[in-house]
Each structure stands twice: as structure tokens, then as C-alpha cells.
């Protein structure tokens, strides 16, 4: 569920978990549609696992994240930060450990949980360590996420989180450059609202602009507090 093709918000449990409790034969037939749906979701998750499996390089036993066989690099793409200033993903991140994620401020629960878990972990690490980490949130919803909207959203989690936005072309370049699947807009509801499917994993780029590890949705604060100090100490995930 971490792979490029599967880092969507909702994929980990595309349906609520349903457990059959020893229904009789006819009842089982009735729930067959549901089971088929779950099987399809499970197949998608498995497919994602295969993709990530093929990307894996050796054991990940000692890391909470998924080690990338092929490291990702920060692309030379310029977006706009919440002060309206240009921010070049590659050049402006050199020398800093960057945790990068895509998301949007109307994101139902995946983005807030990612941001809160990360924010809480950084707080636990203390200012000395957390000051050398920069969290970068790239909005996949240019239509609604104006810089000031992104700013007030991120401030709920950590005032130091960097929020970036850009037009569709720049956003696409950023996603392709990092190596995640393009975000997709869902259907617009009666009230004009819509959701956006997007990569939900968090990439940790070292000061050299290279990411060797990625953290899926579901990464707990305790996973972060265990892994981050090692990453900051320069340990290379393998």
C-alpha cells in the first residue's frame, strides 16, 4: 500500500472491514458481492505490495518505513509557499532533512492524521532535533487551497510546517519528479464539494536531496520517534 500506484488515501481499507460470522450457505451467497469487493480491494493492496516489494532493497526489519530500492530525488520544480514566495523543491531543500507529503486541506482524515502524528513526534523529539527537520506539504487541490488556506490549515498542526501550492502543470511535475502517482479529482457532490485521491506516503529526503525511505499512512508517532533520530544521525536505510 505504499507503492506509487497505491499510496492513495483510501486504499488501505477501501471498504469497511467486514467479518462474516459463520452465516449459513444462502447468507454467504448474499454477502458474496461484498466479499468480492473486498477481494478486489485486497488484490489492489497486494498489487501495491508487489510493486513495493520489487522496489525494496534488502531487509527493512529495523525501520518502520519502507526502504526504497531506487532512491527518490527532489525534483527541480518551483512551487509557491504560504508567504507567496517561490520555493524550489531541490535547491531550497539542500542541507536540510525534508519530510515531504502530498495532500489537501479538505482531506477527510488521512492528511490530518499524517500531519498530527508527525507534529506530535517532532514535538517529542525536542527543538534541538526537530529544528533540523522540515516538513513540506504540497497541496494537490490548487482550486481550493490558496496559500492562506494552506497556512491556517498547517498552523493547526505545526507553525513551522511548509505549505506549497502550484498550478496543475507544476504539481504534475512535482509528483512525477518524486515518483508518485498523479492525484485525481473525485466526483463533485451536490454541495460542490469533492475529494482528491493522492499519494498518502511521506518521503524522508536527506540533506543531499535523496530519499531512501518512505512512510505510509498508518505510521504512528512512535514509529517516527524511533526512526527519525537515526535518520538525522545519518544512518542510511538499507
Amino acid at each position, binding site marked *: 500500500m505504499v507503492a506509487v500506484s497505491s499510496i492513495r488515501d483510501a486504499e488501505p*481499507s477501501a471498504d469497511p472491514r467486514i467479518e462474516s460470522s459463520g452465516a449459513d450457505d444462502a447468507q454467504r451467497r448474499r454477502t458474496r458481492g461484498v466479499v468480492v469487493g473486498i477481494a478486489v480491494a485486497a488484490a489492489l493492496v497486494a498489487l501495491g505490495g508487489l510493486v513495493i516489494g520489487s522496489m525494496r532493497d534488502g531487509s527493512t526489519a529495523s525501520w518502520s518505513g519502507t526502504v526504497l530500492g531506487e532512491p527518490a530525488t527532489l525534483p527541480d520544480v518551483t512551487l509557491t509557499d504560504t508567504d507567496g514566495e517561490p520555493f524550489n523543491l531541490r535547491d531550497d531543500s539542500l542541507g536540510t532533512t525534508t519530510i515531504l507529503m502530498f495532500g489537501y486541506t479538505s482531506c477527510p482524515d488521512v492528511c490530518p492524521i499524517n500531519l498530527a502524528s508527525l507534529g506530535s513526534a517532532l514535538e517529542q523529539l525536542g527543538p534541538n532535533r526537530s529544528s533540523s527537520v522540515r516538513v513540506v506539504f504540497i497541496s494537490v487541490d490548487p482550486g481550493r487551497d490558496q496559500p492562506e488556506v494552506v497556512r491556517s490549515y498547517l498552523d493547526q498542526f505545526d507553525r513551522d510546517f511548509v505549505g506549497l501550492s502550484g498550478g496543475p502543470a507544476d504539481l504534475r511535475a512535482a509528483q512525477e519528479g518524486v515518483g508518485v502517482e498523479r492525484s485525481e479529482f*473525485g466526483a463533485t457532490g451536490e454541495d460542490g*464539494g469533492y475529494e482528491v*485521491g493522492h499519494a498518502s506516503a511521506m518521503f524522508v529526503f536527506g540533506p543531499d536531496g535523496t530519499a531512501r525511505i518512505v512512510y505510509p499512512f498508518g505510521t504512528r508517532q512512535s514509529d517516527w520517534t524511533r526512526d527519525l533520530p537515526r535518520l538525522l544521525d545519518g544512518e542510511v536505510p538499507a
Partner: protein
Amino acid sequence: MNAPGEDRPGGTVEAGRSDPGPSDPGRTSSGDAAHAVTGRGRAWALGLIALAVVAVGAALLVGMLGGDDGAPPQVSASEARAGERVGTTVAVYVTLRNTGGADTLERASSPDAARVLVHGTDEVGIMRTSPSLEVPASTTVRLEPGGTHLMLEGVGRSLAPGDTVPVALEFDRGETLRIEAPVVPLEDLLEEPPG
């Protein structure tokens, strides 16, 4: 070690137990066929297989067309929890256990919210608003972070850990279930839910 998705909320999809017991028709009839040796015995075996095939077909048909078996739904809620408010929205998670006949959550409401929606996912994994949520007979449906959940919109009250959010769940056939979801820090939602 924490493999991706291992043991994480929203990271697992559990299909129903397949339970291939003695009712497995394929296994039974092939066993009979093995015992049939010659002549009349073979004819009997073929007859039995044909009967089994018809019976299975009929069971399938009944199962698909059957709809409600008339048993009253028995839905109970547990493990209710609400995330802290983000903007004016609050996500609520709950486990719905149905020990009776099939039912559907048709509507949810809360005095704390302008409206409550069911958020599910579409076939390509994009979160969408669902009009309702099916709770099939004899199943447990878990609403979990990253998956299907109840989204409270237009929440005016500032909610902190220690507070609870009342939500009324109106079912199609059964009664209205009233839950009190304790507010949990967002970063704690991924930890084990309360019993």
C-alpha cells in the same frame, strides 16, 4: 519490524472466513464419484452429481434473489471514537456489529454538527460521500482511520480530548443507535482503539 500495513488501522482488509466445511459441494460429489466403480454404480453416481449440481444452482439462485431473510437486525456499536476537530470537521469511527438480519445505516446526525456524512471510497480509491452504509446480516463493519468513516461537518464547538461527541445512527430496519464518541488526539487514532 513493521511491514507496511502490518497491524495498522486502515491497513488491513479482512475478507470473511471462507469456511469450506462439509457443505462444500465440489468435495462431496467428487468423493462419491470415486466410490462408483462400474455400470449401475456409475449411473447412480452421475445422478447424484447432477442432483448436487442442481441443488447448488438452486441455492445460489435463492441466495442471490433472496434479499432479506426477515430476521430482525441486531446492530450494536462499539469502539466509537472521534478525531479532534480539523477546521470545522470531525471524523468519527465506530465498529458496527450486526448479529441479526441485514440493515442499512440511512442517516446519521449529531447536535454538534450541521450534517453528518458517510465517507466511503469509490472503485479507484478516491474518498467519496456515500448516501448510506450497508451492514449485512451477521457481519461486523469497522469504520477506521483511512477508510470508511462518519464525517461531521460544520462543527462549531471546539472539541478536546475528554469531550464526547453524540451521534445518532438511523437504520433502515432497526432502531436508531445513539453513540457517544470520545474525542481522541489525531495522532492517537492509529493506536489500538479502546475496548
